[in-house]
């Protein structure tokens, strides 16, 4: 039968997931005003987490700081400076996330299921069952190395395409561009 404590933990879990989505969107968003609004949403969800963790004095201090003043100050800053954020140069960044995620995947799964796991854990060990098997139906994938190679391949591919695109620009356009930049 559902008790009051399971309900509270359920509220905490849902608040955590909503704050996760809000943070991800805040970082990925290019339009800074939307990013500020998402950070305000994320701060409200954190207030609820503070409340559920029985810290009313912290919540009392945290609300004016995070829901009140941060958006106001940063909106003021955005009004004075630029509103949108320049987009990322190379697309290699996404595959770096791939590497980051495969490195921490075992730990994150371990955190959820409560089993112990190591960072950069390649294959399941005796005391740490979380891990990717060495082979899948006798096709060797050697644990997480497969995913590392995949992300590395993507990063290198995007890097090289960038280089070849730059090399393929005709000479006079580049010269005019450089001389153009010199006058700037």
């Amino acid at each position, binding site marked *: 039968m559902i008790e009051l404590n399971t309900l509270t933990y359920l509220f905490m879990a849902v608040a955590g997931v909503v704050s996760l989505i809000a943070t991800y969107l805040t970082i990925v968003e290019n339009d800074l005003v939307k990013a500020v609004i998402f950070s305000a949403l994320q701060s409200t969800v954190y207030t609820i987490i503070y409340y559920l*963790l029985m810290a009313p004095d912290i919540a009392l201090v*945290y609300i004016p700081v995070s829901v009140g003043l941060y958006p106001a100050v940063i909106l003021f800053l955005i009004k004075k400076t630029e509103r949108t954020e320049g987009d990322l140069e190379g697309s290699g960044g996404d595959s770096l996330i791939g590497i980051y995620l495969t490195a921490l995947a075992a730990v994150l799964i371990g955190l959820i299921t409560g089993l112990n796991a190591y960072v950069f854990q390649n294959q399941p060990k005796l005391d740490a069952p979380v891990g990717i098997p060495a082979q899948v139906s006798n096709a060797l994938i050697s644990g997480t190395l497969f995913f590392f190679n995949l992300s590395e391949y993507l990063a290198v591919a995007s890097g090289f395409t960038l280089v070849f695109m730059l090399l393929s620009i005709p000479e006079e356009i580049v010269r005019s561009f450089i001389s153009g930049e010199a006058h700037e």
Partner: protein
Amino acid sequence: MNELNVFLFNTLLFSLFFNAGISLYGIFARPSLIKKIIALTIFSDTANVLAIVVGYRTWPSPEQSPIPPVITTTNPTTEDIARFASQAVDPLPQALVLTAIVIGLAVTLFLVFLTLQVYRLYGTTDVRRVAKLRG
């Protein structure tokens, strides 16, 4: 019923750690200075919440929730204090996080006006273009 509670609390911890990871990525990888400030505030807030989570305790009984660390009676008797000690959440991290939040606000305000100054001098808040102009 208990492992459901453990799983839900683990989801909260998992999302807090993931928040910290994402905001760290935001601080390093995103070019706009304003985005870096927003990511920094999120990272310091996550650290504060993690400090408070450390102070949390298991429920005395499924119906009786832990109470906030505030003794509401004016001159508490020993029995009051005993009951309080058995139910209350740990007050120490709360005291530390209280100052951390306020100082975080002061640091962010300072950063905001630094970025404003950078914009006035260089005409852009994009870190890559600022690096090019040798100023």
